[in-house]
């Protein structure tokens, strides 16, 4: 499980870096516990864009009401993991 979560974290980080064109950071140096809103500076439209890509990559639906809970890459990875495990 830990390995899977770490893989998911790396994938999500790559998606965020690519989609938001973040500079001076790599999946290896990106702290998965950074607060995406307060510390990375992403906003609701950025999160919606990422959610669209995650939906296509993982085949899961991310509810709009859940956006406020998805504050870090680690939390997003756990959210996806739960969705995949429960088959939602």
């Amino acid at each position: 499980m830990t390995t899977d979560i770490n893989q998911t974290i790396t994938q999500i980080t790559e998606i965020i870096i690519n989609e938001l064109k973040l500079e001076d950071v790599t999946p290896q140096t990106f702290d998965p516990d950074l607060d995406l809103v307060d510390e990375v500076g992403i906003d609701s439209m950025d999160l919606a864009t990422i959610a669209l890509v995650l939906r296509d990559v993982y085949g899961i639906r991310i509810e709009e009401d859940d956006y406020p809970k998805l504050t870090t890459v680690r939390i997003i990875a756990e959210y996806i993991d739960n969705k995949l495990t429960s088959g939602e």
Partner: protein
Amino acid sequence: MAEPRIRKRFEKVRRYFFLRESTYDMTNRCNIRCEGCYYFTGEKQFAAENNDLEDWRQLLESEKKRGITFVVLAGAEPSLVPRLCEACYRVIPLGAIATNGLKTIPREIDYRIHVSVWGNDRTSLAIRKAPDMLARQMANYRDDPRAVFVYTFTPVNIEEAREVTELLAANGMKITFNMFSAPVGYSGYLRHTPQTLARTEQVMAELLAEFPATVLFSPYNIVAHTRQQGLHELFSCSYPRMNPSTSIGLGRSFRQYRTDLRWDRDAACCVPDTDCTDCRHYAAGSAVVTARMYRHATDPATFSAWLDYVDTYLAVWVRGYEKEPNLHDAPVAPPPNN
């Protein structure tokens, strides 16, 4: 998103996802008094005016620091305080001003200028008590690329929209559409009915088809703003007044400042004191519909319709943004609002 023209449009509009707005009442004075005016409803009209340029400059600097990148200068009539508007422009150079257009806003203030139109001059005289409004508005903003005329549909001016659109088209000007949205407690004759909403939908569609170079609108704008359900029921309003979340998006960043430079979260939306159940306001839709990208990403037609809406929003609000031809010419139903 796999279709190249959809991907291309998405890439064009997403460059503006950095826009984070707040709105500011600039003065509690106006040079006309309109039936159903949202400004002269509720408490905000009684806030004291602060005309100190340094106070405004400091406010805008602090707004910039907390991430605001787009300002909307509104109530009651910003053209009466041009120096305050200029002070805002010097700090945050992206924005729009809502004006009745009777007094020209200096060209140095390079914001989008929204000139409100409530019908032909006969109707404007009756509702706004000002003679020759459209003629004066057009004279003030002729050959001014900042200007877009905002035609507010009410039950009594639907059939005049063609006359106004033709006139603006003949003079190379732009128009977009708004819907009268009743202030809290308003039960006057300007409140829309199912019949007037249906007729407005029809007229908007005709004008959009006939004047595509003049009318900044899309079929999905028509759907979103002429349904019997208001914007909140269709999309869940994301402004603080209706959205308790402070974690992300408008619920986190939006403020509506009064003329005393204070704001109140419970009243914070782009048209405070509007009856939320009747809100179909163009400014509200520009944020509320635009924010709902994810739920529109269900199929190419629905996502194209959403992109047309965002493209319209940017063309109406952002100086220099050019509207593209609409991607989807047929109306689509709004996605479910769970």
